[in-house]
């Protein structure tokens, strides 16, 4: 329940943070001159409206928590169960693999790093067939290289291992 409430505050939290940054930055932009609106006008207006909308969303989330807190024998809704079943560990692993892939690709090379990344991502998706994983990863890396680098002339890093 507490986790659900915290998660429900995440989107308005992101909106509020964006509002704060936009207001802080817009204050440094050149001001309007001679009746002509300056570059700060639109970001300022949008940041204020977004801030108000975020506060309304936070208020709504608080009201829902108070209402559900009062009701006894609270039964979890299907979507709550769905939220509870998020595989955080595998999601974290996949995100870490993506970040690591982007960091090591320039010096490791496209084909080698992509092979390792695909094999690891298959593991994250619970596809664990040993040699199959690696065979698919190698094949996919070469096909992608042919498609993007050779056919469409997209510059891909060669690196140490190719």
């Amino acid at each position, binding site marked *: 329940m507490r986790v659900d409430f915290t*998660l*429900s505050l*995440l*989107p*308005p939290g*992101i*909106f509020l943070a*964006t*509002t704060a*940054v*936009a207001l802080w*930055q*817009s204050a440094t*932009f*050149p001001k309007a001159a001679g*009746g*002509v*609106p*300056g*570059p700060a*006008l*639109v*970001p300022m207006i*949008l*940041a204020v*409206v*977004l801030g108000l*909308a*975020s506060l*309304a*969303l936070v208020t709504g989330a608080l009201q829902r928590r108070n209402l559900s807190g009062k009701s006894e024998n609270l039964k979890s809704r299907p*979507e709550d169960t769905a*939220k509870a*079943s*998020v*595989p955080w560990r*595998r*999601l974290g692993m*996949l*995100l870490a693999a*993506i*970040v690591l*892939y*982007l960091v090591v690709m320039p010096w490791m090379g496209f084909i080698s790093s*992509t092979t390792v*990344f*695909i094999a690891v*991502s*298959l593991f*994250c*998706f*619970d*596809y664990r067939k040993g040699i199959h994983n690696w065979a*698919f990863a190698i094949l*996919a890396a070469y096909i*992608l290289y042919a498609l*993007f680098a050779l056919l*469409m002339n*997209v*510059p891909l890093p060669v690196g140490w291992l190719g």
Partner: protein
Amino acid sequence: MDFSNFTEAFQLLADPMVFLFLICGVLLGVIVGALPGLSATLAVALLIPFTFDLSLMPALAMLIGVYAGAVYGGSVPAILFRTPGTPASAATVFDGYALTQKGESQRALSVAAFFAMVGGLIGTVILILLAPQIANIALRFGPPEYCALALFGLSMIVAVSGESLLKSAGVAIFGLLLATVGMDPITGYPRLLFGSVSLMEGIPFIPALIGLFALAEVFRSIGNTEQIAQRSSGKFAWPMRSDMIRGSWTGIRSGLIGTGVGSTPGSGSDIAAFMAYGIAKQRAKPGDTFGHGDIKGIAAPEAAKTGSISGSMVPLLSLGIPGDAVTAVLIGAFILHGIQPGPLLFEQHGPLAYSILATVLVAHIVVFLVAILGTRFLVRIVACDRKLLLASITILALLGAYALRNNIVDVWVAISFGVLGYILEHQQYPVAPLLLALILGPMAEENFRRSLILSDGSYLVFLTHPISAIILTLSVLSLIFSVIRRQKPRNG
């Protein structure tokens, strides 16, 4: 309209070489459109050098074929993998992918192909009959009208997305704020860049789109990798008669909307598709299941986006003004081949002008036939192991984001939007308003500021211009109706 011109035009088109190059163009366009990150603009731009040695009609046929093929091709991954190949296909995701999840991807693809053809044919017939009149209306649009049009597109998607208007509006405003990142459209002052030169042109919306739809779906599916069995007739995927009838009115109306939007310079097929989807959803009847695999939800964006292809030819051919990015590239190709689009084109080169229109007409039919013949092969892709598919989508999404500008920052943008999309969807916030705000934001801001400059800072300029006032009124009405629509189930 001079029908002798049209007869001559079809004679020009009867050349087998023209037809052959048209088919080649369509096939190439469908493939490029289906690859995330590669747009119709890119497809046409890449092809121009290969048409240098061709004679005029085969070259034009191939370019138009690529354009029409790429616009349809974007819907293939949108329906099969929730990964729109082009921004215009993002609206097809909602109901197309829902049908795939029910095991009916073949049905979704064939319906999409059919209504894409319907929209395209409607648009082309209107183009042939009314090109000068539509161009006249579009010419009356000034900054207040463009600003109002952008806000109308946004209000439509806010009105129909999600269960909560506040959440939907919040996401749209957040998107508009993100759209202000980059150089100020009037003064060129760099805003909210935090030192990143790569964002000078704003947040790139194709990587954002890839993140919001493809990567967010991958993150969402990580806990559910069960295989979805796909029904297949095993024959050519001709759309079912009941589906054609069910979506017919929506398809015709959306084709008209697409043609109108496409003929307005600056408004592309992405805006047309979202607007048509929004209107179709707003006019939903009891029993319609928008967002859950409704045929009308596929018919509307598909017909609108192909209608807008024909619509975008109106300012291109009759005024020499490109309607969107693709036609801007096309106009360059036309000039390279010795054709100067503009008011004199129809007068001085009647048969040639009408042969271009006839090529557009035939291109839509060829796209439909290619799609119908290819659908059963495409469906086999979805029948692959879902875990292998998800890994493939992940790497394709990352590479697609990179390939656009060969810039690693775009990949980070895609990942950030992927995480953002996942969080928003997890909390039942709609993501479509965010994407549309990124697309429409720059157009809205630039024309808002220009309007204020022209009116010496008076905000009344938006109400004193009749067209702008009407469009803004419609925007407000759509939001009011949306509030009433949302309250009905609660009261009922």
